[in-house]
């Protein structure tokens, strides 16, 4: 699969074409429904008084939110990628990361399973390349010239 040189309109209807993008959790209606409570919990941490309450008693504070057991565990264990799988949106989960004193780079390292140093090194050397990271279908294709790439 060769790289498209000029933008080719793709249909946004039916089975959404964005599902083909690898390693990407597009925050559509289905995810928004699934993650609503998880994200609203994260959002609550933009208020100082809520940050204080969560800091002083995390378990009591989490009890106030109607999270699924999986979602609650993902929060307690800071499983950043799993939060996305359970409907989290990165701008919301970042509120929790910021609560922990993390930056977006820390969060990205957490989601991609590398150290912050490794992630920083990838970014300062040009970031994760687009080649090999465009399409799930191409990654599965036997030719393999869109195989996963990690920078």
């Amino acid at each position, binding site marked *: 699969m060769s790289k498209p040189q000029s933008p080719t309109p793709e249909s946004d209807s039916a089975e959404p074409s964005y599902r083909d*993008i690898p390693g990407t959790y597009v925050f*559509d209606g289905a995810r928004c429904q699934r993650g609503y409570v998880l994200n609203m919990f994260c959002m609550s941490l933009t208020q100082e008084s809520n940050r204080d309450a969560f800091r002083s008693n995390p378990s009591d504070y989490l009890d106030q939110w109607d999270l699924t057991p999986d979602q609650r565990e993902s929060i307690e264990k800071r499983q950043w990628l799993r939060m996305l799988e359970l409907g989290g949106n990165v701008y*919301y989960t970042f509120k929790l990361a910021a609560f922990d004193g993390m930056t977006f780079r820390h969060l990205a390292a957490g989601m991609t399973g590398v150290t912050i140093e490794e992630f920083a090194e990838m970014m300062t050397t040009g970031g994760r390349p687009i080649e090999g990271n465009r399409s799930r279908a191409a990654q599965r294709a036997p030719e393999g010239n869109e195989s996963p790439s990690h920078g």
Partner: protein
Amino acid sequence: MAEIFAGIGTSHVPAVGAAMDAGKDRDPIWAPYFDKIEGARNWMAEAKPDVCIIVYNDHASAFSLELIPTFVIGTAPSFVPADEGFGRRQVPDVEGYPELAWHMAESLILDEFDMTIANQMDVDHGLTVPLSVMYGQPTTWPCRVIPICVNVVQYPPPTGNRCFNLGRAIHRAVQSFHSDERVAIFGTGGLSHQLQGERAGLINAEYDNAFLDRIVTEPEAQAKVTHTEYMREAGSEGIEMVMWLVMRGAMNPVVKEVFRATHIPTSNTSNGLLILENSAER
């Protein structure tokens, strides 16, 4: 009549604001970026717009998933920096322009754009970082600001075509305002970046450079690009680039590029800065 004389496209990376706020902008890691944008700051000091219309997106700061507006116009007399999870950013409050903002709101709605009107709204790094990029660290911002806030967090954002047409309608609205003030419009966000998932850290410099070219010379073609293409090629958060089309739509068909800089990376983002002036021809 008021007049939009310049369009500014800029990334709005929170780390850029944080570096300035912490006085780290001359540190070795940051100096190369701030050196590159000095020309833009000089242009701004010369151009002195009376009003800046800033098209940006809120990042779960003023708005949450409870209510997700597609297009918001801020009509308040002033806007306070939002608490994004670690206290409010220590920059001046942003002075609004209720009279022009209401004029625009009325014009845009009668022009069949389904605006949400915000009489009270905090503004996050999406709006304050572009001010920092262009103005540095003044004690008060030297312009009045009209925030135009676009949803790009919840899928689907407005189409590129809709953003471009909103820009055209903003042009009409400003032009029918009674003052003779000079207005700059900012399109902010992008360029390529992805903050989430196993693909976090994606950068696509080739795509970004093509985007900058096309924004200048082929905006109508760029307005046809789909959301999936942006997300695939420029990363899930690269979709913010649609907001540059609002800026471009508010400019004349032919523009003069007076400044361009790119820098990879600031934080996780391919950072772009572009200044356009209207050519004589419309």
